[in-house]
């Protein structure tokens, strides 16, 4: 991979619905790529149904489900009353009846009314019933900040779910993965939390109809030799930009897009850290109890002898999500990532 391929391309004009089905590599925004993946899954399997608030005529507040109501009808694209526990809880019943529900939680901060059904029911049925009952439920969650929104619209609740056994958790960063992983998530016989980086919804990129990425694989975005920089969701782009900036100063950063947050593809992370000896993990979510701490602990256990320096976390603060005019201080940006890189290199404390 060349360094040039890291640059986030400017969004070209992308108009209209994606072709049905996607037959060749096409440029789509991330939102349109999810839409194309949902459409493909619905065409392939009549048991795939969508549930959520405003997902029908409106196409969702981010338009991810645009035009699907017209194509598939109200029994498959279900505008629900405003009750997140019921969106998840009725999906459980639908799964019991052989459906593959795809639930849309409108914003990250709205998932908590549905939390009990997710952690007490969805996550546990397979274990509880010794494999008799499967929960092939996909829960789509727009997540993360950087859009200047009101409270509850910018959160990163992924660690609650990576801490919950029985759930798979993925976070996509680009249109190709968005298309591939939504289809993999729907096809999975396990429940999947599918986190969508809402501030990247309108970034476009090439989307191939090939399903090349398994559900639980990390991706090396750019090879490097000095520092491993681990990111997921919206921060993958920021991390890639940081790698470019560091390259100008002669520091070679290996950027990894984690993609799967549960399970973590430790084989890829471990191989990278054995090579670089230095690890920086970045996420928007709060530091304490976050995924970064867990990954660093696991990597430290696995390859302590290879570490040249204590791993570093570059994360959101341990605060409730701040007001929009303060969020730039909270969210890891390119400069804070480079500061983390400097620290892991011993250039500053």
């Amino acid at each position, binding site marked *: 991979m060349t360094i040039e391929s890291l640059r986030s391309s400017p969004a070209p004009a992308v108009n209209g619905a994606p072709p049905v089905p996607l037959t060749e590599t096409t440029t789509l925004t991330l939102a349109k790529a999810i839409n194309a993946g949902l459409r493909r899954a619905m065409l392939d399997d009549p048991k795939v*149904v969508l549930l959520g608030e405003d997902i029908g005529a409106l196409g969702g507040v981010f338009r991810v489900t645009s035009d699907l109501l017209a194509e598939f009808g109200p*029994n*498959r694209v*279900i505008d*629900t*009353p405003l*009750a997140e*526990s*019921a969106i*998840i*809880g*009725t*999906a*459980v*019943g*639908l*799964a*019991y*009846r*052989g*459906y593959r*529900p795809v639930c849309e939680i409108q914003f990250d901060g709205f998932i908590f*009314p549905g939390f*009990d*059904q997710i952690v*007490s*029911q969805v996550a*546990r049925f*397979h*274990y*509880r*019933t*010794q*494999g*008799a*009952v*499967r929960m092939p439920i996909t829960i789509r969650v727009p997540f993360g900040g950087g859009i200047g929104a009101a409270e509850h619209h910018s959160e990163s609740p992924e660690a609650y779910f990576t801490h919950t*056994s*029985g759930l*798979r958790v993925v976070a996509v960063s680009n249109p190709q993965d968005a298309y591939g992983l939504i289809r993999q998530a729907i096809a*999975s*016989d*396990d429940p999947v939390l599918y986190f969508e980086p809402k501030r990247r919804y309108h970034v476009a990129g090439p989307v191939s109809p090939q399903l090349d990425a398994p559900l*639980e694989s990390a991706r090396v975005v750019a090879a490097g030799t000095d520092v491993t920089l681990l990111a997921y969701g919206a921060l993958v782009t920021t991390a890639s930009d940081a790698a470019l900036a560091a390259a100008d100063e002669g520091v070679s950063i290996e950027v990894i897009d984690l993609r799967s947050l*549960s*399970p*973590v*593809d*430790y084989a890829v992370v471990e191989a990278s850290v054995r090579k670089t000896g230095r690890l920086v993990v970045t996420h928007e979510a709060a530091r304490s109890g976050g995924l970064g701490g867990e990954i660093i602990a696991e990597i430290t256990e696995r390859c302590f002898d290879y570490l040249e320096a204590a791993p570093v976390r570059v994360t959101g603060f341990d605060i409730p999500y701040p007001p929009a005019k303060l969020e730039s201080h909270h969210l890891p940006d390119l400069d804070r990532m480079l500061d983390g890189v400097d620290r892991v290199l011993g250039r500053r404390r």
Partner: protein
Amino acid sequence: MHTVLTGETPAIFLQLLSPDGVRMPSAELDPWVVDVTGDDLAALYRDMVVVRRIDAEATALQRQGELGLWPPLLGQEAAQIGSARALRADDFVFSSYRENAVAWCRGVSPTDILRVWRGTAQSGWDPFDHGMATPSIIIGAQTLHATGWAMGARFDGADSVAVAYFGDGATSEGDVSEALVFAASFQAPVVFFCQNNHWAISEPVGLQAPAGIAGRAPGFGIPSLRIDGNDVLAVLAATRLALHRARTGGGPTFIEAVTYRMGPHTTADDPTRYRPAAELEEWAKRDPILRLRRLLDSLGRFTPELVAESQALADATAAELRAGCIGLPDPEPLTVLANVYATPHAGVDRQRAEYAAYLASFEPTGGKP
């Protein structure tokens, strides 16, 4: 066509049997039991005697240290048997943890009913074998599962019905209100069967529902029936009515079956700390089995043969349950990490491999020290 009922007035409290076992007319319910024969009544009696015996035997097993816990349904036999015997095999039950008589009617073996309470499994049976989900311990959560299942049945064009069993305490949970909203909005073929047994552990029903329970459903757009839950015939009739509405596109129905938890919440509970003894004595007079016995007697059907065969079945079931319970093997150690996911998961798979290696390190005993 369907009565919308509120309040406590006896006139709208639907019964077919008085506490003395006298058959009473009800324009609402009579049409739904015209086909019930003396043999059917005898079968209901037999069911109720057996499940009461299951309850007593399981309580004894808990006292003897063979079960960790047991939630008795003593006093609620009519509510559970009458409703469950109205169901078809292709209907689906989503229940709480006290519906062990419903499980009996759905063909779950007594031993399987006990697995959870002995602690050998988190669920005792395969839900698809019996059309009954594994009981929900989270209060009220299953009402949403029933509603979702029913939405799916409607989408499929099937005439199968989901039945949600829950108690008076559950009606305070948000999930139950959300289930009523969704069921009404999507006209889901679901029956909400609430057993008002008057107590949620130590909290009386008046704390949960100062304005009553049955009166809530009409506010959601769901017809509601308030029935005598200790009257097995009324329960059978009301459930048949509700199932028929659901099967024929009428959508959800709410049933409040007024009954009484004559035992403790579970074997870990002590109701003498919060419940007046006089209340229990009062409800003992309305015992559901006694009531059906009186009806059978008046029909000349309470025969020595019925008594003997009911007793024999109860004895055999209790013996099977006791032997089955004590014979349940402890699960293999590594099953602690089995079935967390349906497909391989690197994190759990690694922990299983590590724990297997740890256990193997104690060979030749093969187990922990």
